[in-house]
């Protein structure tokens, strides 16, 4: 249930505070819209958008304010998760936030000039990066907050009271799972302060969306969370279908549920395999990764690709399940079960595993919600928020499954929640296969779904539909819409602004990994260096989704 409101900018901060007190205490996303090329003139050229969820996890509030001046009061005093989200808006749109303590670029490099998501910024105008941000100012400010350094009158910082060693973990480091830079101040092995730098894989997804048709964007969504490509396809296709006001036939919905759960298994397998390698438990990598290969074989048969499947389309999917799908699926699920069982038998009662993971990298439920954590990471802290239960779609309410929650919110819980989710997903898949309805996989609407090839080659209507849909794209009614699903890493949402054409005017991804990494620094401070590696692994940061 989503509510869209427009508020005058001067009342915005008070309004958000009031809503926070009413229970809208879970910030999903902050973004801006540049209306300068929109079909009809708006009140002002720029608007800022806040998407906030109620703590009952059912209602969503989308608040929009037009900006006369490019400055807004920061809401970091209400939501800690707003910190990086505001930095991103500043980086991409050049909107300043009053009261934000560290308003620096987050995705683009430090030498970047301009704000790329403004309509006036040409999409292909690249800028070489010749410098590296030393992050020392931010580090000093963090240390200042912990009274480890003092600020002198001339603005410089005095020597540290402790004998600190500064260390860069990444950007290119085997434990950083992609390219993430963690800059640490170490006292012995203990992390006194941490500063995180991301954006190394910022490849302009949102800007690219603005010059591709809706179906052309599907392959781009594959590469957000590339460990579970289909779940991104589904999240995007479902959002656009909701804007179009169409619903899939039950068979299409069931196939999507099935593939969503298979993606979840696939994603958790690689996350768990990688974190166990980080811990030195190499054997488990083979146990967990080989079942993934079996899933790849299944997906290759079904979609033609192993990893980046691009299987969904607006209004359905490319093709129906293949003939031997069921036996291939059962074989894959069997392999998954074997792999999970073997791994658990090695780690469940393993003292080293317990010592390395328990009470490490803890985040409390209150902090986790305030920092906008989502998915397995949030559930590990004991918050039973799962969109599949709280705001079900595609008939999730008809399947029987449990929501796995942790009790401490440490690395152990985050790992174990994922193991349990693999089991629950397997159970959902089995239920879907038992009740798989017959019928169409695509919506019956020639203005949305491509005609079949026979029609294209033999009828004039077919040729015209094919041409118009390919050339102009699916026409989505003008408007602004936020849609989301429970993807493998949590709530994956798309905020889309349409101007009625076949190309979105603006797309913003609410990326679970982005908010997770913004909470990471607070989670590792006070723990040891080796714990930081496991904490990062347990958050399952996928760079494609985090940096977009």
């Amino acid at each position, binding site marked *: 249930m989503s509510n869209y409101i427009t508020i005058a900018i001067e009342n915005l901060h008070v309004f958000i505070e009031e809503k926070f007190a009413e229970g809208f205490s879970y910030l999903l996303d902050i973004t801006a819209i540049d209306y300068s090329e929109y079909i009809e003139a708006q009140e002002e050229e720029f608007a800022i958008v806040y998407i906030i969820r109620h703590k009952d996890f059912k209602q969503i509030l989308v608040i929009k304010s037009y900006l006369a001046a490019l400055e807004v009061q920061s809401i970091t005093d209400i939501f800690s998760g707003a910190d990086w989200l505001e930095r991103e808006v500043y980086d991409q749109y050049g909107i300043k936030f009053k009261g934000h303590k560290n308003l620096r670029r987050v995705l683009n490099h430090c030498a970047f000039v301009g704000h790329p998501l403004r309509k006036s910024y040409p*999409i292909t105008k690249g800028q070489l990066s010749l410098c590296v941000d030393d992050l020392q100012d931010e580090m000093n400010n963090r240390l200042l907050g912990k009274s480890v350094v003092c600020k002198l009158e001339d603005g410089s910082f005095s020597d540290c009271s402790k004998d600190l060693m500064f260390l860069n973990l990444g950007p*290119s480091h085997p434990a950083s799972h992609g390219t993430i830079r963690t800059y640490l101040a170490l006292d012995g092995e203990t992390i006194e302060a941490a500063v995180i730098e991301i*954006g190394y894989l*910022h490849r302009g997804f949102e800007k690219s969306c603005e010059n591709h048709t809706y179906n052309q964007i599907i392959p781009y969504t594959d590469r957000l969370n*590339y460990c579970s490509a289909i779940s991104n396809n589904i999240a995007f296709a479902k959002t656009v279908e909701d804007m179009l006001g169409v619903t899939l036939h039950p068979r299409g919905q069931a196939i999507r549920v099935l593939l969503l759960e298979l993606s979840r298994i696939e994603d958790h397998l690689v996350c768990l395999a990688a974190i166990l390698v980080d811990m030195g438990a190499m054997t488990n990598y083979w146990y967990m990764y080989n079942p993934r290969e079996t899933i790849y074989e299944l997906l290759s048969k079904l979609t033609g690709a192993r990893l980046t499947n691009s299987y969904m389309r607006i209004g359905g999917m490319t093709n129906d399940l293949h003939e031997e799908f069921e036996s291939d699926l059962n074989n894959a699920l069997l392999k998954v079960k074997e792999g999970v069982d073997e791994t658990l038998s090695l780690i469940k009662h393993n003292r080293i595993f317990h010592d390395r993971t328990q009470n490490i990298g803890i985040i409390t439920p209150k902090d986790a919600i305030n920092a906008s954590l989502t998915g397995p990471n949030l559930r590990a802290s004991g918050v039973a928020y799962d969109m599949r239960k709280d705001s079900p779609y595609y008939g999730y309410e008809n399947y029987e499954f449990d929501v796995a929650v942790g009790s401490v919110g440490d690395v152990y819980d985050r790992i174990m929640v994922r193991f349990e989710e693999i089991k629950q997903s397997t159970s959902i898949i089995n239920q879907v296969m038992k009740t798989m309805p017959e019928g169409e996989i695509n919506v019956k609407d020639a203005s949305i779904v491509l005609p079949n090839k026979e029609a294209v080659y033999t009828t004039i209507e077919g040729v015209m539909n094919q041409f118009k849909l390919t050339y102009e794209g699916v026409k989505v009614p003008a408007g602004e819409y936020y849609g989301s699903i429970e993807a493998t890493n949590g709530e994956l949402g798309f905020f889309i602004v349409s101007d009625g054409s076949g190309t979105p005017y603006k797309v913003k991804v609410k990326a679970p990994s982005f908010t997770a990494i913004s909470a990471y620094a607070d989670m590792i401070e006070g723990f040891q260096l080796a714990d930081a590696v496991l904490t990062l692994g347990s958050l399952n940061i996928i760079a494609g989704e985090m940096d977009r």
Partner: protein
Amino acid sequence: MGLAEPGLPLDTAIVTKLEEAIGWARESSLWPMIFGTACCAIEFMSVAASKYDISRFGAEVVRFSPRQADLLIVAGTVTYKQGPILKQIYDQMSEPKWVISMGACASSGGFYDNYSTMQGIDKIIPVDLYVGGCPPRPEALLDALLTLQADVKTNKYNPDRHKDFKGLLDNV
């Protein structure tokens, strides 16, 4: 050179050219350094795992320190922000060294023709082999490795081959 032929008496003396002996030794002891940034890195995980098993070809000693590696595999999109890092890693590798560009993004920027993505790593470092695909299948990377090994064995890649290369980040 026939060293691998079974049945040679143990006291056989072999006469060969030094460069051929070196090529033969290098061929099966390439130590890759993976500069994995995105989706292609996940496919590299498959190449390293049991099914495709890169160790069958003597290139499984994956290093994460450029100083210990002689084969740089760039697996994934390289953005402008990452450029200086990749360049530094390449510079830290000692000769002889080879570079495989894995996937469309590393080779040409792929379908990310926009403000943040470098349009191919050969804008900043020289590349010996390009592997197409988004991402390439594991077989494709293994094929690139075998191609490289064949050339390494015959010393086709002379150390001065990139002498005239000038990247965007050189001398700026």
